[in-house]
């Protein structure tokens, strides 16, 4: 086995491992991820136009950042990473609900304190 053959085998191994690497076997379909991104964007625009937009400003900008990153990854064909990004963005909706819930609870507590002068 001369040196040229060794290099040929190394090339084959490298190409095979590159193709079979987990990062390159997409688990999600692009269409599915694009739909998720669109749905997230639509839900976000509803929140932005609601009365709580100021209260959840930080969460809104986080979701926007994840949407932008997901779109960028989709254009680069990193479908799974795009799926991860949009999934993270979607987690912020629960945080928005929690923040609104906290605001309501705090208001109710303050009103009760005022009512009973505590």
């Amino acid at each position, binding site marked *: 086995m001369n040196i040229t053959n060794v290099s040929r085998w190394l090339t084959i191994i490298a190409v095979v491992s590159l193709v079979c690497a987990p990062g390159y076997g997409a688990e999600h379909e692009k269409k599915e991820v694009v739909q998720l991104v669109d749905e997230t964007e639509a839900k976000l625009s509803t929140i932005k136009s609601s009365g709580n937009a100021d209260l959840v400003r930080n969460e809104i900008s986080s979701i926007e950042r994840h949407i932008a990153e997901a779109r960028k990854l989709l254009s680069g064909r990193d479908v799974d990473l795009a799926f991860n990004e949009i999934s993270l963005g979607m987690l912020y909706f629960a945080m928005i609900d929690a*923040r609104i819930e906290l605001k309501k609870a705090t208001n109710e507590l303050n009103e009760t304190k005022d009512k009973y002068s505590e």
Partner: protein
Amino acid sequence: MKRIIPYLLPFILLLVHPAYPDSKEMEAAKEAISDAEMLDKDLNAKKDLRPFIPVELYSQSQADLASAKIYINDGRYAGARYYGTAAVIRIKTAALLARAGLARDQKEKIVSKHTRAAPDTNALIDGNFLKKGDVYRTTIFDHQLFVSKKGHIFYRLAASGKKRLEKVIGVLRAYPGCTLKIVGHARAYDYNNYTKRKAEVVAKYMYNNEISADRIDIVGMGDMEVTGTYHGYRKIDRVEFIVSGIK
């Protein structure tokens, strides 16, 4: 040059292989995990919040954190960053919900503390208070309240009188916002303003029982008012208690 390319190509391909650590991704993953751990520690340090942490969400965050650690040990940094960031978001959400839960609990405690006063209308019943208009009134006769010997009344509180006054004090405690007017009445001439003085004896007992002087008003009415008895309206030596401010 043509001879070098076959030797270089495998190395170039191995260099672009995804298994090679992306230092930026690795740093982001480490940062996310460290943030999640810090937030988790902070949340658990707040003893008052602990009972209100939503179990399901918190368990998910812990599962995310565990996955992130497994991924980073395997050198799968994108996955580690994903799970680490998910843990951060879920812990922050759990903390917000726990704070909301605590606020609601505090509200409930305030409401129950004040609505508990309602059954303490028992206190009003115990003290024989009757509602007249916006106020509650009760009357204790001098012989029930003060020390008496051979028909003569000494204006010192008797043990039985103190027991009766405890019931009036119970009403003041049950309704912290109410005020009390102590009115001394006489059956005859108000000698030496004694109707006011006996009201003062009663008030002093209340002050000693931690009832604020701001809530008590003392009046000596002399023999100006009559009270209803089985025998009709009569002037009787007595002390009247008028509680106002109960809604």
